[in-house]
Each structure stands twice: as C-alpha cells, then as structure tokens.
C-alpha cells in the first residue's frame, strides 16, 4: 500500500485497470429491467377489472419497425369456495384469510368460509403495432380489431365490446383465436406482453413500453375518475431468444431483481397533506411464468420505519400476490408515517410438474390445480405450483423448480370522511440482480 501511496501513476493505473474490467463487463451489453427504457417483454404487475375499478392498458412501439406482440393475462382473483350463495354473490379473495367473516345473505357472519380457490386462468391474445404506434385498450371490454375506424374523440361500446378510433390490429392467431383483445371482467391480476416476430417466435426487439391506469368506476356514486397510474416493467432482450421460451438469464433476457424496495406511507397513518386514512396494497407478479402451471409467488418482507426499527415477515400466494398492508400479519404495522419496505423472492422451490394424488391434505387447495381432498388424502389434482424443496415433494413425475423472482407495484388508498378513496401507484425500485434464472413460456402466437 505504501508503494501505491507514493506512486500516483501506479495507483492511477490500477484504478484504471479496475475500471477497465468494469467497462469490459458493461460492454457485454447486459440487458436490464427498466420502467423507463423500452423492452422486449413488458409486465404490468397490477391490472384490475373487478367491477369497482377498471384499467386502461397503454402499449407503445418506440421503434420505426413493426412490432408483433403476444400477451398473456393471468387472473389471480379467487373465490371463497364455500360462499353461501355463489350463484348470486361471489366472494372474491386473494387468500384464505379473506374468506373469513363472510356475511351470508341473511346478514349472519360465517367464519372460516374458505378456502380461497384461485384457479389462475390465463388469457392470451396478439396485437400488432406499426412503427411508433401507440395503442390502448380497456381491460373489461378489450378492443375490437378495426384497421381503419375513423378519427374521433371517444370509443364506441357495443355490448361488452369497445371500438376506438385509430388503426388497431389484433389478428386471429394460428389457433383461430383473436380478432380482438378479449374483455376480462372479475379480473385482478397481471399482464405480460412478449415481442415476437410474424411467426410468433420471441425476438429481442426492445421496442415496447407501456403504462397502466387503474380508474375508479364510481360505484355507489363516489370516487369516479380517481386514478392510479404506473409505468410497465420492461425486460430487455439480449442475445438471440427464439421459440416461445424466454430465459431470463442475463443473456437472452435481463435477470429479475434480487429484491424490490418501496417508499410508502404506513398503513393506518394519516396522509400528511389531506389527513385521509391511508391503506397500502402491494401486488407482485412472478418472473417465472407458464400457462400450464400457476407459479407460486413467495415474498419475504423487511420494513424500516423512520426510527430504523425493522420488521420482517413472509407469505405466499398462487400466481399473483396482492397484500393489503393490514392483512400482512403485522409485517407492515404502523410505527412512523414514512416507511421503506423491501420484498425479496422466497427461498423455497416451485413444483413445475407432478401429481398430488396420494398426498395428505385438509382441503382441496392442498392438492394443487384441480385438487380434490377426500378423507385427508388427495384423490385428484396435480402439484404444479406447490412449494417444494425436492422433486419428491411434487409427487409422481415431480419436478421441483427454483423459486420465482418477483416484480411489483405498491398502491396507496386515501380515504377521507366521505369514504372517497383517492389512489396512487408506484412501481418498486430494484435492489441488485438475481443469481437464479427465471423462465417465461407461452403457447399460441401468430
């Protein structure tokens, strides 16, 4: 060290070499995940169309080439399986806890009504964007393909479909589906769109960006027009992706973040400006995606308040996680008004294949997709999407894949004495890059 201290040229040279090495690493053109640079896969981690709010999805081609896009929408909304009157009143849920204290049609409180069944259906469709073309659709109605609807200042709704001015192409795919972006109702989940070529194979065009605007419908005459908006998460492509399997390995596509961090107000606090009551909701989409199984989203939370007091906890949900701050088991209890939370993917694995038949169970949901629990034993269902530490945990033919990375958004709700909830949404900041690869796959295409 003394030599370095005495010889600035040598120390400069060494620093230079170190930087050279760093520059060399950067020169590999590492793809990144960004909310402000275009990408080849765009993810909207929170999309709502549940009868109280609806979402406008905007999607833009930032290049001067045509962009072909294949989208997969996953509904993470479940229903309480033992709802007292499922034909007339559906009890939506994201977890078993939300099925507690359901009120029956006579007004009596029914405890332990669950479990919350979340089948995680996914819907796919295709969109074509011309050079630099912006487009959008409303999630509940979707948008009907019309290559040349005349100019205008508003969309036209016919039934549950919407036609809007502009050049809009949502072609019929090679399986005969399409012709529009399908409408989705009873939907709380996530949307991801892949840039592909004319054959439906993945390409790293890095042309896509977007935003989501969640708008209150004014149910009961209050709150109409209240907006939460956020930028899409754009996953950049790197070298030669192909087919319909996207490897988020830092080469084909950017790796997902090692952890996320949110700046947010404390649930239960008062907004420092409007004095409205604050509630916070965190939504997470898994980085790993397949239309054939539901990826379990496992999240490990750490929260710091302004006094540096930390709290931690963890939880898991099927295919899409949505936590209200007050439902996180004290993870984000109020200590000071301004908080910072980090959320990291859980460490346990994810069954990507296998049968749950023969497993012990206490409810159908213990038996995975299509599960039936009879006499404390699974008689039907597969274990995909279940937690595992080895293939044996996944039953016959089981495969235990790695835990999935996560992408997320936080949404604030501000409720004043008139019970009109103002809202705002913020994407998570990223902390580091995962060392584990995620994989996204899809079927269909052009």
């Amino acid at each position, binding site marked *: 060290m003394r030599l370095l201290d005495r010889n600035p040229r040598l120390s400069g040279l060494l620093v230079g070499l170190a930087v050279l090495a760093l520059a060399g690493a950067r020169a590999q053109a590492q793809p990144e995940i960004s*909310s402000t640079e275009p990408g080849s896969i765009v993810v909207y981690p929170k999309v709502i169309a549940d009868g109280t709010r609806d979402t406008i999805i905007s999607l833009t081609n930032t290049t001067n080439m045509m962009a072909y896009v294949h989208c997969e929408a996953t509904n993470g909304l479940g229903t309480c399986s033992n709802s007292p009157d499922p034909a007339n009143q559906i009890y939506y849920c994201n977890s078993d806890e939300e099925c507690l204290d359901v009120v029956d049609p006579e007004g009596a409180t029914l405890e332990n009504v669950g479990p919350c069944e979340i089948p995680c259906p996914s819907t796919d469709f295709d969109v074509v964007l011309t050079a630099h073309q912006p487009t959008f659709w409303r999630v509940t109605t979707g948008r009907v393909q019309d290559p040349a609807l005349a100019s205008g200042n508003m969309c036209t709704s016919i039934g549950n479909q919407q036609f809007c001015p502009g050049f809009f192409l949502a072609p019929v795919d090679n399986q005969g589906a399409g012709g529009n972006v399908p409408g989705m109702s009873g939907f709380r989940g996530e949307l991801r769109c892949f840039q592909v070529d004319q054959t439906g194979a993945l390409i790293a065009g890095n042309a896509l960006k977007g935003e989501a605007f969640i708008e209150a419908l004014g149910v009961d005459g209050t709150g109409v027009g209240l907006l939460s908006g956020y930028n899409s998460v754009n996953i950049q492509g790197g070298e030669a992706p192909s087919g319909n399997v996207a490897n988020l390995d830092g080469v084909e596509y950017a790796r997902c973040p090692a952890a996320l961090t949110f700046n947010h107000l404390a649930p239960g606090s008062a907004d420092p400006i409007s004095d409205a009551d604050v509630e916070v909701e965190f939504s997470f989409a898994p980085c790993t995606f397949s239309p054939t199984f539901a990826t379990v989203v496992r999240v490990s939370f750490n929260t710091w308040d302004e006094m540096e007091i930390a709290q931690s906890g963890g939880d898991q949900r099927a295919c899409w996680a949505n936590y209200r701050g007050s439902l996180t088991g004290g993870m984000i209890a109020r200590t000071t008004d301004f908080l910072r939370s980090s959320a990291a993917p859980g460490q346990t694995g994810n069954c990507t294949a296998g049968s749950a038949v023969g497993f012990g169970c206490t409810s159908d949901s213990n038996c995975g997709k299509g599960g039936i629990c009879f006499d404390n034993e699974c008689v039907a269902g597969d274990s995909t999407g279940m937690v595992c530490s080895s293939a044996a945990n996944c039953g016959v033919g089981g495969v235990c894949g790695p835990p999935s990375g996560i992408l997320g958004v936080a949404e604030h709700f501000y409720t004043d004495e008139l019970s009109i909830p103002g809202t705002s949404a913020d994407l998570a900041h990223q902390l580091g890059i995962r060392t584990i690869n995620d994989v996204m796959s899809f079927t269909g295409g052009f």
Partner: protein
Amino acid sequence: MFTEWKLAYVASALSLVVAGVTPVSAAPDHDNPAGILIYPKIVVDTAAGIDTRLHLSNTSSLPQMAHCFYVNANSHCTNTGGVCSSFADCQDTTTGTFGACVPGWIETNFDIFLTSNQPIGWVASEGLAGDELPCRATFLNPNPCAGLGSNNGTRIPPISETPFIGELKCIQADSVTRLPLTCAGETCRNDLTGNAGITDIDTTDVASYPAAGLRSVLNNGDNDLIVGGETAEYEPCADVLVMDFVYDGAIDPIGSLQASSELTLVPCTQDFRGQTTPPVTAQFLVYNEFEQRLSTSRRVDCLLDTPISRIDTSQPQNSIFSVNVGGTIMGQARIRGIGGGLTGVALLALATDYTDDETRLGWSSYALDTVVETSVADTISLP
C-alpha cells in the same frame, strides 16, 4: 498542477476510452438506487388545495448524506413582485397598470442526513427540522434510533413561496465537503431512492411518481458533476424522452370523462454556483394511432410545466396535442432536447370539463421513458 488523485482519475477515464465503450450508456432510471435524484415537479398551491409529499430513502446499511436543491421556477411580476403565469396576473390595483411577468430561477440548498436504511418524508410546504426529525441525537442520547447515525444537521426548509412550481434535486455527498466522494466504478455510492406525491386535498387523489435517478460511475470529488459524455461521472440524461399520452379533450374510455395531461421538463445542465441554466429546446414528434406524425418545439428555460395542449399554442383546441387535431385517443410524443438533456414527468387528469381545473376528479402521474443514443454531456455545477 496535477495532484495524485487527478492522475489516478485521468488514468481511470482514459481506461474507459481505451476500452472502446461509451463510459455509460444507461439512461437515467427510476428503478435503481442512485447518487443523484431528480424530482422534476414540486407543486404547492395552498389556495387550490394542492401540496406535494416527498419521500427519500437510504437503501444502504451505512448512514448517508444528501445535499439537496429546491429550484423555484416561479415567474414574478416586475411591479408587484407577486407570483404570476402571465402579465394578466400583474395588475397593480392601486394604479391599474400592468407589469411584466418575468421567468425566475432561484435555488435553495439544504442537507439531509439519513441513518442506515432510513426512509424520511416531509411535506413541501412545511419542511422538516428540529423536533420533527425522527432521529435527533442529543448529548444524553447520542444514538436515538436503532442503527447507525442520526438526522442531526438536517434542516429541510419549506418551499419559499406559494403558489410554487419547481424541482428538487438531491445529490449523495460527503457530510463534510457536501460534494460527492471520489470514487471509481463499484466504489461509487448509489444509495438513494425517492418518490413524490402531488396531493389534491379536495379529491384526496394523489399523483405519485418516482424520482429520476442518475447513477454515479466515477467521481473526482469536485463541484462540477459531469452527467454523460466521454468523461461521465454520472449516467447520462436521455437524448429522447418518450411520453405516451391521452390527447387533451379525449373521452376517457372507462368513465366517459374528459382527459387532459400535463408535462414537466427540466434541463439536466444546471449551474447552481452561477445561478443560471442554459436554455434547451425540446423538439416534439407526436404520433397518433394512425402513425400520423406532427411536430413542434418549445424552449425550456429552467422548467417547463404546462398542459400539453398549450405547448404549441394558446388555443388548446388547435394544439397538436388536442384530440380535435390528433383524431385518436392515445398518442406518443418523442421529445428530443437540443442543447442539453432533459428529464421530466407526465400527469394525466380526468375531469368533467378538461379546461377547468375545478372540475377535476382524479389524476395520476407517470415517468417518461428514456432513450440514449449519443450520450451528450451535461453538467451540474455545485456551489
């Protein structure tokens, strides 16, 4: 005369050039902790019930310090000294004469000391100081919080006047020199994240956005911060900002309300030492859903905050950002800064009459996407 450090710094910079790479090519991002945070839009108007909540976090397990600058971009009347947006606001009621409305640019700087992992927040109109600081060390209680450090030395002033439109910029700095520490590559500190929420008290709705971050990649510790270019100390500002927008006056496809948007742009080059900022011309290419292209340009002196349909005209219905002209609901604007880089934020509002703020029902803001093509250097000069 070269000091030892300067030699080392030059060697480091040369090594980047020899490597044959643009030193940094990533655009300012809103996704990762950074060494410079830019909050492009701070709005306070107590008469209209609007204020801004600010949130700044240290993601490091070590205490950190941020040297921050409020930029007051209000215009003022030459006769009354009042805040104005046009000469019509400058009538002297005693004489009946009008003064001129002159653009202004006034900075106020202050320090924020953050303990490890600490989030801190304040309201722009109120500031944060004294007993309100969450971790205030005293002689009897030198470690008031759970981890390392305290907030002593922090005094966040309230914004200087209301109504207020301006910007906040925070630079991670050494607690003694108030300048960034010398560093190279991974030794550079990038620990700050931030968010702002513009609150409408009447609707309780909040338009929140993440602060834009510029990550430090190399630093010689002086008070000229080079943003982008061949000898970049920070990642560059964007050459092109991409804004998706709903045309002003378009009918929202969900609630059938009228949509309008605001755009805020801030030049990346700023001279806090000389209290000047060179003008940048923002060139707009606007595409509608038919891929039809229109263009305009507008000078950005120190901060541009405007309804989009007033960027190119005083008659919004004739603007290229008006649905009357655009002909579709959604558009894309590519904004190129000529003479320097730009950062900014967009805001979408829904109202029963988009020309009347009083009828606004909700709003939301979002970040502009960034494209870096040539990595032009900007400079932030600190006092």
